[in-house]
């Protein structure tokens, strides 16, 4: 009582509908992938072409120049590069230990209910629109920093030039703090996945040797995740480097290289946000695109670097070296 057709039915019965369906699936998926790649290339081309005017006027010395003078037609990227590097570095320095602590708690130590609850709350942090976070920075974080954090820093660490000077509610330090908040969920969620991937046999092996939890975490979990942690940090860095709106809201704007972190400054991205609407000359617009091109290159390089680390230093994969 089989409903199966005879074996002779195996050939010559390919239905047109099936054929079209398969082709269509291939076409749609391949098309979407190609479109994504094409978009990256087109954006890069547009940015480079728009930066051409500034590039032919200033060449590579644009990168070393601190000028930004519309009337005298001189522009340079150095203050923005400084602001970008310093604010991102502050963000990374603050966010990494916090994120590692969160990831360890969620993957190794927390009871199950807390893993779910805290885990999703931390990820919600990444869902806060950056413009909202920037507003919170202006209204809450800025005043707190100006009234408490910065006076405290200058009292104890004032002998360091970066922590000297008048506290202010907008500046590079506050931009770094805001960026840290944005970077924490990225690093924390990647690291949590990394730690969960550490084979439980390794953890048991360490515990069976009389290791404490902390010794097990330090000796086995952190060591075998080291390259992944580095990659997570670089991905977080990439996020910090490119963030524009929230930074523009709290950094205070100033195309200078301030000696104190309390003072206002600018990042490449915040400068573009601040001036794109009200540019007055073509050269100024092209210079903004030049800043954008630099940012694009930095972004691509950090991303490639992160991928390289993951591939090159994967301890389990390269164990046979």
């Amino acid at each position, binding site marked *: 009582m089989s409903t199966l057709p005879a074996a002779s039915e195996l050939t010559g019965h390919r239905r047109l509908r099936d054929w079209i369906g398969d082709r269509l699936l291939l076409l749609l998926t391949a098309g979407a992938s190609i479109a994504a790649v094409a978009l990256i290339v087109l954006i890069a081309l547009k940015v480079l072409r728009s930066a051409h005017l500034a590039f032919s006027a200033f060449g590579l010395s644009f990168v070393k120049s601190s000028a930004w003078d519309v009337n005298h037609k001189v522009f340079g990227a150095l203050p923005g590069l400084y602001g970008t590097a310093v604010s991102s570095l502050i963000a990374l320095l603050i966010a990494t230990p916090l994120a590692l602590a969160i990831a360890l708690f969620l993957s190794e130590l927390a009871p199950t209910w807390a893993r779910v609850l805290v885990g999703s709350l931390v990820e919600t942090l990444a869902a806060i629109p950056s413009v909202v976070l920037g507003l919170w920075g202006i209204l809450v974080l800025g005043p707190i920093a100006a009234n408490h954090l910065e006076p405290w820093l200058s009292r104890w660490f004032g002998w360091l030039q970066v922590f000297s000077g008048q506290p202010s509610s907008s500046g590079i330090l506050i931009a770094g703090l805001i960026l840290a908040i944005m970077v924490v969920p990225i690093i924390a969620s990647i690291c949590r996945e990394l730690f969960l991937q550490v084979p439980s*046999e390794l953890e048991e*092996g360490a515990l*069976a*040797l009389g290791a404490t939890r902390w*010794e097990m975490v330090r000796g086995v979990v952190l060591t075998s995740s080291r390259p992944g942690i580095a990659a997570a940090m670089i991905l977080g860095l990439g996020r910090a480097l490119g963030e524009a709106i929230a930074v523009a809201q709290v950094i205070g704007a100033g195309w200078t290289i301030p000696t104190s972190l309390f003072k206002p400054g600018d990042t490449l991205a915040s400068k573009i946000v601040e001036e794109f609407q009200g540019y007055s000359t073509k050269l100024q617009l092209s210079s903004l695109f030049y800043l954008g091109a630099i940012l694009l290159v930095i972004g691509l390089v950090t991303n490639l670097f992160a991928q390289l680390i993951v591939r090159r230093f994967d301890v389990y994969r390269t*164990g*046979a*070296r």
Partner: protein
Amino acid sequence: MAPMRPVDVAAQTEPSTPQSRETVFDIQGLKASYGSNVAVKGVDLEIYRNLVTAVIGPSGCGKSTFIRCLNRMNDEVPGFRQEGKILYHGIDLYGDGVDQIEVRRRIGMVFQRPNPFPKTIYDNVAWAPRILGLKKDLDERVEKALKGAALWDEVKDRLKKSALALSGGQQQRLCIARAIAIEPEVLLLDEPASALDPIATASIEELMHDLKTDYTLVIVTHNMQQAARVADRTAFFSLDVDESGQGAGVLVEYDETGKLFTAPSDKRTEDYVTGRFG
């Protein structure tokens, strides 16, 4: 499975007379469960010093759970509970104030799958001595442990190479070296050769013969020939299913290996060792 050949049993070297042996573990009415699942219950047995004690039985009879109770590795499993007593030199391992870390420092464990750390060969062995503060003469300690695990000659020229490059059998001997580097008294081996090929298995078995002069060994194995080859005493666990259909591991018989395999006193043991079941 083929019945035991008398040769295997005859290969046992010295007769083991428990009367003259010091008791290391005295287990009384042990019951271990995960949540509402009872893994093993009603276990009473004594494990003697400088002997190899094998735990055999069909899968699901709780032999792994049992051995993991002996160094409190089950503490890491959520929902685990134990009742009864495990006396180690007269001290209740689950008593108040007993530190797991101290327990595991004295009672080492080797697992089913070799689990070397993704570190160098040297650092694998040196890791536990370092965290326990045994940093004096570390090189000698590492060498001694690797020699004790019969691995030294194979790795002495590449101590700084990754342990993951070793073969499975070498990795397992490295794990044994890692465990004996902190000079425990007892070594628990949870099916240490089940993931290895026959040649590597033979080297592990040979090693166990050498190790028992310095250590007390407890080995879980599903391989009866292996138990017959390496163990002085053997405990047979089986699965006991009650009226409600709930199964739990029980200790059926515990005796000298020769006797357990040739003249078992329980019908279930006889069925198992002659291959009629399991």
